[in-house]
């Protein structure tokens, strides 16, 4: 700060940045982490169960309602958790003006990929 401010340090900090919504970010990352434990274990187990089987077997598996719902929930939790986690990594290591652009790019990339994955799953699930 170049000029002497007459406002107290507390008055300048209130309402800024992490003092506002940090706990929500922290909690959302953990809620998604808890959701990801069963979802990712189910996914890995399903992949193992389908080892060596071909395209038809995989598509017919993803067409079952349970697998389609599970895959969509996995994509939501996975990319939400990824966006929150990568944002913290950027905030810790990027200190230049690129930080804001990097955080926005991570958010758009993660939620864009989640939508692409969900649409792909739905196209397989509802495909003829």
């Amino acid at each position, binding site marked *: 700060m*170049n*000029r*002497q401010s007459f406002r107290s340090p507390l008055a300048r900090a209130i309402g800024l940045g992490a003092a506002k919504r940090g706990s929500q970010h922290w909690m959302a990352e*953990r809620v998604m*982490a*808890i959701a*990801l*434990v069963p979802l*990712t*274990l189910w996914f*890995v187990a399903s*992949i*193992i*169960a389908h*080892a*060596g089987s071909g*395209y038809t077997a*995989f*598509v017919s598996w*993803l067409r079952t309602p349970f697998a389609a719902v599970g*895959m969509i929930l996995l*994509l939501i939790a*996975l*990319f939400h958790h*990824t966006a929150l*986690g*990568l944002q913290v*990594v950027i905030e810790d290591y990027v200190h230049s003006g690129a930080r804001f652009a990097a955080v926005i790019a991570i958010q758009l990339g993660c939620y864009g*990929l989640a939508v*692409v*994955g969900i649409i*792909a*799953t739905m*196209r*397989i699930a509802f*495909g003829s």
Partner: protein
Amino acid sequence: MDIKSIAPATKAPRPRPLSPNIQIYRPQLTSVLSIANRITGIVLSAGAVGLVIWLCAAVAGPGPYAIVQHAIGSWIGRIVMLGLTLAFFLHMCGGIRHLVWDTVHGFELRSIYISGWSVVAASVALTVAAWAAGLYLGGWL
């Protein structure tokens, strides 16, 4: 005389030393697992992109799906998948350890080392078990 050079309010703050100075620290299980959780998280982000590519290949049809399956089945693909499996189990077990810490439990030095080595052992065991099961069910074993 330049007034700025003597006015304390305009003086730029001297860069403070950052702690911990990791270049002089001997690696410990605690610090190695801490950074490993972050690195595996970044690696798994790439795996998440791979999951979407895989789903898109399945939508595109048997041809594109076979190309992706062929890439996964190659030697490089298998090494990458093995690395991703280990990264996944390390991140999951390390994440569960963090969730326990979030409930303000297990912070005694002894507990921290017990949980740390448990994370390492469980991750390796789960990776070996997953690959053994996959190779067996796939008919390669």
